[in-house]
């Protein structure tokens, strides 16, 4: 790491950047007092939004100046980031970056750039968005740093393997792949051992070499603790959705989930979710619902349709329909009990084996069943996501089972999390309208 880069980083980020973003947060917080979403029937944005914005802005602002100051890693969303954090890496999550581009309607240009390079339209739209950025340097956040290390964990899909191999070709840096065997019911001891060995024998040596440091147990435990604390808080926030009316919706969750994904293991993330929990509890106490006059409560399965978030939220709110929970946002909370600080690498191996996408479709059905009961839901929307096959497989029988067992309507909605061309406006609108009529809220 170079001294000159560190000085530049300290001055621009730590001195000027932080102060400016803190000031901007203060202004945003004032603006938020009178802010409204697209619909009058949606509760105003959470006050914490100003902090969320500061965190995300600071994260990407750091990225502009971090090269040379800190080692940079690109990581899949289900990657064992705690090890990298403990080694002082600055971490970029290409999936998160792609989602952010989608939410800001900046993704299509990037997707098309990737396609111009020859990547097929049938590849996941996150991959195409990210490769668009990697190949052209264009991004809605100004600039992404080049990685020194790539870490792909196959616990979310097999696509990441090929995606990161392409990134390796583009950036010519080491790639570590953590292979996580599929878990149908329980992970057998040899699977845990297998993943643990990969962390110890593959990831740590390479990550140490690239960073020029050795992993200190004390630091690692500290990061794991922050990770566990933030994950537990996130889970507690999501479980607040069991209240009637629900104080937060999945739309709030989609907005405020960025820190739990890309800043897991940082102390500030724990502080942030602690504050968020406090605000959500306050809403419960005051009886403020995410939707005015909540009449029906609906579950969302799969990734969000990032570029249509606000419209969908408004459309449902206008009919008194809230969406208290989704399997997707829950995925970043439900593993909290598995994180065991004392058992170090073994606990990490277990945690990274158990994400919902690395388990059978029966497990997801069970998660949804439990949600319908615990969150007192009246219907289910399953987003059949053209870009996320592992998440979408099994949705037809899952849908039919939920309808049969609970006698509630369930809608399979075809769309795509980031590619707008796979979203058919009129057809989605008519399906949602029919679904709402079925629930007698139209």
């Amino acid at each position, binding site marked *: 790491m170079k001294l000159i880069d560190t000085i530049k980083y300290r001055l621009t980020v730590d001195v000027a950047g932080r102060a400016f973003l803190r000031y901007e947060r203060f202004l945003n917080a004032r603006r938020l007092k009178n802010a409204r979403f697209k619909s009058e029937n949606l509760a105003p944005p959470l006050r914490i939004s100003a902090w969320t914005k500061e965190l995300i802005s600071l994260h990407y602002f750091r990225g502009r100046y971090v090269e040379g100051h800190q080692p940079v890693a690109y990581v899949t969303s289900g990657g064992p980031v705690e090890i990298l954090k403990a080694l002082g890496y600055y971490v970029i999550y290409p999936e998160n970056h792609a989602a952010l581009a989608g939410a800001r309607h900046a993704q299509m240009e990037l997707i098309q750039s990737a396609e111009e390079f020859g990547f097929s339209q049938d590849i996941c739209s996150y991959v195409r968005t990210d490769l668009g950025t990697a190949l052209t340097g264009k991004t809605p956040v100004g600039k992404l740093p080049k990685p020194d290390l790539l870490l792909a964990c196959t616990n979310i899909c097999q696509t990441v393997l090929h995606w990161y191999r392409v990134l390796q070709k583009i950036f010519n840096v080491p790639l570590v792949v953590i292979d996580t065997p599929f878990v149908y019911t329980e992970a057998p001891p040899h699977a845990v051992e297998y993943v643990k060995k990969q962390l110890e024998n593959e990831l740590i040596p390479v990550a140490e070499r690239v960073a020029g440091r050795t992993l200190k147990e004390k630091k690692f435990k500290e990061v794991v603790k922050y990770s566990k604390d933030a994950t537990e808080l996130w889970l507690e926030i999501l479980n607040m959705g069991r209240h009637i009316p629900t104080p937060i919706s999945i739309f709030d969750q989609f907005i405020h989930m960025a820190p739990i994904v890309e800043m897991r293991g940082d102390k500030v993330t724990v502080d942030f979710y602690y504050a968020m929990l406090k605000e959500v509890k306050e809403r419960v106490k005051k009886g403020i619902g995410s939707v005015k006059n909540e009449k029906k409560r609906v579950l969302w399965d799969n990734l969000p349709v990032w570029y249509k978030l606000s419209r969908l939220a408004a459309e449902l709110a206008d009919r008194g329909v809230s969406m208290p929970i989704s399997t997707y946002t829950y995925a970043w909370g439900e593993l909290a009990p598995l994180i065991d600080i004392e058992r170090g690498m073994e606990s990490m191996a277990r945690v990274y084996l158990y994400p919902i996408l690395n388990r059978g479709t029966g497990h997801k059905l069970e998660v949804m069943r439990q949600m319908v009961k615990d969150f007192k839901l009246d219907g289910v929307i399953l987003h059949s996501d053209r870009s996320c096959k592992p998440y979408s497989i099994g949705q037809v029988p899952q849908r*039919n089972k939920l*309808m049969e067992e609970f006698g509630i309507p369930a809608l399979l909605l*075809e769309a795509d999390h980031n590619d707008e061309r796979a979203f*058919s406006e009129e*057809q989605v609108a008519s399906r949602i309208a*029919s679904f709402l*009529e*079925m629930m007698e809220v*139209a």
Partner: protein
Amino acid sequence: MSRVKAIGIDVGSTTAKIVAVDENGEMIWRYIEPTDPRIEDQVDRFLEKLKEELSISDEELKKIPIVATGYGRKLVHQAKKKLTEITCHAKGVYKSLGHGGTLVDIGGQDSKVIVISNDGKVVDFTMNDKCAAGTGRFLENTAMRMKVPLDKMGELALSAPEEVKISSVCTVFAESEIISMIAHGVAVEPILKGLHRGLISRIVAMIRSVGLTPPLMLSGGVVKNPAVRKMLEEATGQKVILPEYPQFMGAYGAALIALESTKSEN
């Protein structure tokens, strides 16, 4: 006093329909035309026609509740309520046939399968995915390409002793596939039969995704095609039941919902 107690208007992608019902919900008047791009003018014309043919005054018409459905429903400003085709079709068919079951409606631009309960409620539904495969447009396009009159298509398909396989379900690509078959000297009838088979296989897949609750009912403009009916029966092993006016089920259901709204208000 006019006998008309409620009106339903269904502005579909291909045709627009209007239905008037009496106080018992009986269909006493109906009219259909190809959908005009100027939907508002067309609806005005429809209502003029209704007034003229049933001798209804402006004053009377104002008091009659209207419900609109179909893709163009948002442009029917006279409607007090706008509902989707799913709800309206289920309502219309249930009243016409007097029982629930699985309704297949093949329209111009979309096809849907609706499961209707024994008390007439929508229990489940599915619609064709984003493209025009499995819709009336699929047949219409190819009929045009092959210069076969649309109303003769079904008969011709059924007259074919054999059929060819059309592998593309995409309306546009199926058309190129057909052109190449014609160029290779394949006769029109087997192509038509293969085309119908393709459409039916899409519909059957949709039926399977929601599960077939007998009896199987069919509505929509494509019902006029005898091959669709026959091949659907062959593919599902179920007898297909048709309402008396299969093209008007959306508009009829809309009128019935309008009628119910007056009753609940009273």
